[in-house]
């Protein structure tokens, strides 16, 4: 009893000892904060990865893919049984996307994924990450009129509205340019005619219509447009850009061969993007020219980082710059199926962006409808490259994987893995980082322990007489020692408790604190151009907090063991004589 009374009194009267636990307090607070942020990042990342990768992935390494996949799907259903919640088949190919932007072509390496629209939503969180609210319900791969990314500030005008404007502007531009070309030609002819009066045979070689055009009074107007060829890439009237102006060029010559010969720009683009039969048939089915104003190519959902870049503008605001947007056309190049793959170029219309905030996925994933990709690649409609399974909550992924591995031996060129297997190295790296941080921060608390040790030694020396008195009254050595051990325990509990509360309070307000620090120091604490999170994610694991607190108290008690032993061993007579 006397131990607790004395502990309590010492705690109340020795403020210097409280100062020595400030470091324990800070250490505990830091540990709580760091763990919360690391766990927050990990949980966020895992959730996103898991959302995309689903639970179990069955991939074929063969160039033909998994033939007769419906049969395999049935087999998997039988094997996995009740644990299965969703199953979908995919075609996965490496690909390259070419985006035309302001007359330049930007190429990016991507993963082209053909998805089965109906079943993919059962397995993956795919649609959750799309920008258009309707696509979030169900993806249609058709361009929407407008209304993309309602929550995003400064998202450029997209959809049919934009596409029509762009196509109209392009049409206008093309007409102007054609006119200019024609007049250039006529001028040249006229000049030729004036310089050396030609024999009539020469004049008859040129087409009579162009001669007729040449005589029109627009000649002077054509000559007055010398800047037009350079203005091709500018034309920034409002939202409209001429960047993808050549898009329609591969189509146009099919049905419009009677029209004017393509300009030099057109012809260079043509060599880059040879005519594609699929599109041509699409266009010729309707026996009409592909009209970008009213028609779209097959839809593609691009990862947002493929078509945009995030930067900080002159005012310091985080801004996205879009090379392409929903409504633009892009070219995707991918290998055909079979043992000697050829490159296939296909034109797609961007119908939406995909933003999972996992930079790896956002920068590489592009989604197209499964049956289209099968057809373009020349695969049979029965072949896919991978099958993804979503299992019941709490199902044993590893057990399911192992069962499936027995059903699909490696000899069949099929690999079965869980999402953890695929992201194993990343998860392990994050885990290791967390562990090392924890060890380092615990060392800080250990350092604080030495502070407690020193302070306690001083208190024991200061209390020498009291120790002698207690011993003369019959207090035992262990009894005296326990005063100081209890004192250490109380101080540790106090420091760890206050530290934990401070840490949790910090975590709860971490984003406003980050903002405050930004204002105070002018230094960005959490840079949204680096991370794809808008705010710092946190997750408090109660057990982690408990362990940190217990560990800190343990260190405080350990630090008081030596002073307590010294107090216990103190000779009562010497202690009483001490003045």
């Amino acid at each position: 009893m006397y131990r607790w009374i004395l502990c309590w009194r010492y705690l109340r009267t020795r403020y210097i000892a409280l100062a020595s636990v400030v470091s324990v307090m800070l250490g505990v607070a830091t540990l709580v904060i760091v763990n919360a942020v690391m766990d927050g990042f990990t949980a966020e990342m895992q959730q996103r990865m898991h959302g995309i990768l689903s639970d179990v992935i069955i991939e074929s390494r063969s160039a033909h893919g998994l033939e007769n996949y419906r049969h395999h799907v049935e087999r998997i259903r039988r094997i996995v049984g009740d644990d299965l919640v969703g199953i979908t088949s995919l075609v996965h190919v490496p690909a390259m996307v070419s985006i035309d932007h302001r007359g330049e072509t930007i190429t990016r390496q991507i993963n082209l994924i053909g998805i089965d629209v109906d079943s993919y939503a059962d397995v993956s969180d795919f649609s959750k990450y799309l920008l258009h609210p309707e696509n979030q319900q169900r993806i249609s791969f058709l361009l929407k009129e407008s209304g993309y990314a309602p929550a995003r500030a400064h998202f450029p005008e997209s959809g049919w509205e934009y596409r029509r404007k762009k196509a109209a502007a392009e049409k206008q531009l093309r007409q102007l340019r054609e006119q200019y070309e024609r007049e250039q030609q006529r001028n040249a002819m006229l000049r030729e005619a004036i310089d050396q009066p030609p024999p009539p045979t020469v004049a008859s070689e040129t087409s009579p219509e162009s001669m007729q055009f040449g005589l029109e009074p627009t000649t002077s107007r054509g000559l007055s447009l010398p800047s037009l060829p350079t203005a091709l890439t500018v034309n920034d009237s409002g939202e409209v850009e001429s960047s993808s102006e050549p898009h329609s060029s591969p189509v146009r010559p099919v049905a419009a061969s009677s029209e004017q010969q393509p300009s030099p720009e057109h012809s260079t683009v043509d060599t880059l993007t040879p005519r594609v039969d699929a599109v041509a048939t699409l266009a010729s089915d309707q026996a009409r020219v592909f009209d970008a104003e009213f028609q779209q190519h097959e839809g593609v959902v691009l990862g947002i980082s493929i078509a945009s870049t995030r930067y900080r503008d002159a005012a310091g605001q985080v801004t996205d710059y879009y090379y392409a947007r929903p409504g633009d056309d892009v070219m995707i190049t991918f290998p055909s199926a079979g043992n000697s793959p050829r490159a296939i170029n296909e034109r797609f219309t961007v119908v939406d962006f995909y933003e999972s905030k996992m930079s790896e996925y956002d920068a590489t994933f592009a989604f197209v409808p499964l049956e289209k990709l099968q057809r373009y690649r020349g695969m049979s409609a029965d072949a896919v490259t991978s099958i993804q399974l979503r299992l019941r909550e709490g199902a044993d992924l590893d057990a399911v994987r192992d069962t499936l591995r027995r059903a699909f031996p490696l000899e069949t060129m099929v690999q079965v893995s869980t999402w953890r297997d695929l992201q194993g190295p990343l998860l392990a790296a994050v885990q290791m980082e967390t562990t090392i941080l924890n060890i380092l921060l615990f060392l800080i608390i250990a350092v604080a322990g030495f502070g407690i040790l020193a302070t306690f030694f001083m208190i024991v020396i200061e209390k020498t007489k009291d120790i002698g008195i207690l011993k003369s009254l019959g207090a035992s050595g262990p009894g005296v020692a326990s005063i100081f051990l209890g004192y250490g325990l109380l101080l540790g509990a106090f420091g760890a408790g206050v530290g934990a509360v401070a840490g949790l309070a910090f975590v709860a307000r971490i984003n406003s604190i980050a903002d405050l620090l930004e204002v105070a120091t002018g230094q960005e604490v959490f840079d949204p151009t680096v991370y794809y999170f808008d705010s710092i994610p946190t997750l408090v694991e109660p057990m982690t907090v408990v362990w940190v607190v217990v560990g800190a108290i343990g260190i405080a008690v350990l630090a008081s063991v030596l002073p307590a032993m010294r107090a216990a061993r103190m000779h009562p007579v010497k202690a009483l004589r001490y003045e």
Partner: protein
Amino acid sequence: MSELATQIRPRRRQGEPAHAADIALQPTEPLAAPSADVLLEARNITKSYRRNRLEVPVLRDCSFSARTGEITAIVGQSGSGKSTLLHLLGTLDIPDSGEIYFDGRRIDNLSRRQRDRFRNQKLGMIFQFYHLLPEITAYQNVLLPMMIQAGFWGYLKNRTAFRQRAQQLLQRVGLEHRLHHRPSELSGGEMQRAAIARALIASPQILLADEPTGNLDQQTGKRILDLLNDLNENDGLTIVMVTHDESIAAQCHSAVVLSNGTTRRP
């Protein structure tokens, strides 16, 4: 002084029935058993301190006995070893050689734990510098031996009885108006009274007093001595008192003089 002398009549008291049952029995030497009314006895004690490798002898072949119900004084010059003898008698220290008996049982060779219990239950001690714990009130200081004795749960269970006894004792020593004062708020005499109350709370058989008046003015010192006499007379408390004041020693039932590390009758 003469007043005091008349007050204290040398007087013999029948020894209280000896029972030290709760001290673990040690093999006692029957030959060495003292006469029944000797409560505390030291036989041929030697004690020396080591200071810078130099052996400084303090007590040499020193013998002492205190009879039940008496006040026994130990007189001597400063540095003659009075306090050392008292500490040995109070088991705070162990003699180099010789034996110490309490109530017929040897106590100098008890284990540390047993000596702690002995001090707590059989012995009360007061000091020249009072030695109250400065952090807690007089009342809590008085309760301290009971807290040590009873442990956490035992104390909680019996705390009403303990508190009552502490209050009675503080009343007995005349400190009922200073119950909840810290030692720093008490005068020297008050502190010594509190120390006496603390020494008595566990109902000890003997009180060891180390210069109880050494730090007090004559008036206050006299009151403390009066209190001790009163306790001796009315409660039959055996007291061993170390003092350098021969006039105080003269008023006690018996006295020994300590010089050159040995005792002699005055």
